[in-house]
């Protein structure tokens, strides 16, 4: 399992490819991989957004990402998981979060992936501050609802 907070841009699919290549003990064991990638859009709440600063509370963020992943491991039969989250200065098209879960079967993979995403969005201490096209800034006040 790999859980990391990243200060530099990363390509979600290359990370996934690279990580899975290293998981030799998983080969032939997993039948289902569910993945979510969250990407910065160039528009939010009807305004053009040109950049974003992603603040976090380093020790607590790491602690909660670990905690959330371990709660998923207790609830579902997960063979492996990968969670990457960006912080710092972010631009449109940058990946913000990547969550991948490897399981034997599809239902547990989907459920666990979604669980990790929702828990992360509701409990992990990250905050987004947007810079709009006129250079004004604003803190994002809440996440898009789950449903």
């Amino acid at each position, binding site marked *: 399992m790999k859980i990391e907070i990243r200060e530099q841009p990363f390509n979600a699919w290359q990370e996934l490819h690279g990580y899975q290549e290293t998981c030799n003990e998983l080969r032939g064991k997993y039948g289902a991989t569910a993945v979510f990638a969250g990407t910065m859009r160039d528009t939010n709440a009807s305004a053009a957004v040109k950049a974003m600063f992603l603040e976090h509370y380093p020790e607590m963020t790491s602690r909660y990402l670990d905690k959330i992943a371990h709660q998923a491991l207790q609830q579902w039969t997960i063979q492996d998981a990968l969670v990457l989250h960006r912080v710092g200065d972010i631009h449109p098209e940058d990946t913000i979060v990547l969550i991948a879960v490897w399981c034997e079967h599809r239902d547990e993979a989907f459920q666990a992936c979604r669980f990790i995403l929702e828990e992360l969005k509701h409990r992990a*201490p990250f*905050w987004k501050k947007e810079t709009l096209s006129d250079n004004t800034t604003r803190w994002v006040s809440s996440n898009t609802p789950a449903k």
Partner: protein
Amino acid sequence: MTITVKFFSSLRESLDMSSQTLNAQNVATVIDAWNQATNGAKMPDNVLVAINMDYVGRGHQVKDGDEVAFFPPVTGG
């Protein structure tokens, strides 16, 4: 006793303070720590609180050496 108080995101900006160390005698709860660190500023309704990296309620007790963090709703992912 010594308590570290931290503020994040919009709260850090509005209070113009990211961290403060309180050398406090009269701090029993989270609210006491907030009041002493902010000189009695009003605590916004949606503020979240963590002690030593775990979420707690506003009435939670604080003890010597604790790190008490205040921040607005989280918006990661």
